[in-house]
């Protein structure tokens, strides 16, 4: 597949969505239905790989690019994924010194606290998938305590969980 066309199709999908997998219907319409570049099975593979792997769910567009055009396609998918992120910088520049105003600071802190509530609301459905037995419950509890109470680097929390997951598979 032509790389420029691939980029334009993927960036159209990412620019018209506001979260990781929200671009999926647009990608499916363009790649599976209209152009027959991918099958539904391949699109599912791309989504599954993004769910198994680390990083944002929107990273599935890298897989889509890879399945459509190999390694160069993966690079194009990556470029299409990151392009919209930089649109935030003009918004930050516009805010600039206005953000230091007392009422603006109060609004910012309210958004911060709402962010804590949003984190909890996102964690709740994830917990239903993640907690499958005593071991996963113990991992949730241990990581919660380590993150909330200690100053331990989060890297060790993640690495510890990975080791536990590997050991549980091997033994």
């Amino acid at each position: 597949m032509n790389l420029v066309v691939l980029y334009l199709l993927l960036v159209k999908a990412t620019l018209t969505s506001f979260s990781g997998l929200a671009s999926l219907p647009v990608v499916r319409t363009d790649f599976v239905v209209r152009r027959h570049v991918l099958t539904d099975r391949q699109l599912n593979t791309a989504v599954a790989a993004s769910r198994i792997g680390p990083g944002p769910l929107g990273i599935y567009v890298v897989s889509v690019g890879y399945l459509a055009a190999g390694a160069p396609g993966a690079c194009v998918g990556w470029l299409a994924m990151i392009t919209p992120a930089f649109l935030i910088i003009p918004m930050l520049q516009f805010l600039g010194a206005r953000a230091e105003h007392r009422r603006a600071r109060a609004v910012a802190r309210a958004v911060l606290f709402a962010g804590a509530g949003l984190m909890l609301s996102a964690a709740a459905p994830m917990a239903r998938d993640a907690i499958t037995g005593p071991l996963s419950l113990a991992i949730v509890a241990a990581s919660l305590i380590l993150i909330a109470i200690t100053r331990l680097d989060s890297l060790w929390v993640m690495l510890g969980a990975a080791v536990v997951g590997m050991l549980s598979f091997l033994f």
Partner: protein
Amino acid sequence: MAQPRLSGVIGLFSRVGVTVFGGGDPTIAILQREFYRRDWLSPEKFAIAFGLARLTPGTNVLAFCAATGWYVLGFLGALAAVLAITIPASVLVVWLTRAYDLTGHYPLAQSIANALLAAAVGTMVGAALLLVRTQSSRGRWLRPIVIALGAFVLAYFAKLSPLQVIGAAVVVGFFWVEE
């Protein structure tokens, strides 16, 4: 606030990019906690980055990374943050795509991913508690708790989108200003 080096920004974002599973929310939770631990970003700037990232098209967490990188080191920081969090993770996802496409499954990776997802859940709850606790010092606990719980109820029970919840928080924050 501490001034990080470019290598520090690249190091933090790249390792968060390859060690945090479960999507953008756990990634933001981990980054929030690491910014706090390293004293890189004020709570207000974190909040602006968090709020505006929801208004930015595309993958929200990447806009969040661009914003926080921009705050700590300007455009170079934004570029470094976005590249660092996406490149290693993209290489991994291509490798997983190959493995998944060939075998249809990858049980060891799945087992590790499940454990990391559980850790991500604990991390998100821990980071949310840490955020409220650290910002409600000196007896100012009512506003943080009311807004955080209100946001949780609106998002989880009333099924409002994150953007709508943030919009509600903006209104509350505008009219409810603590002395």
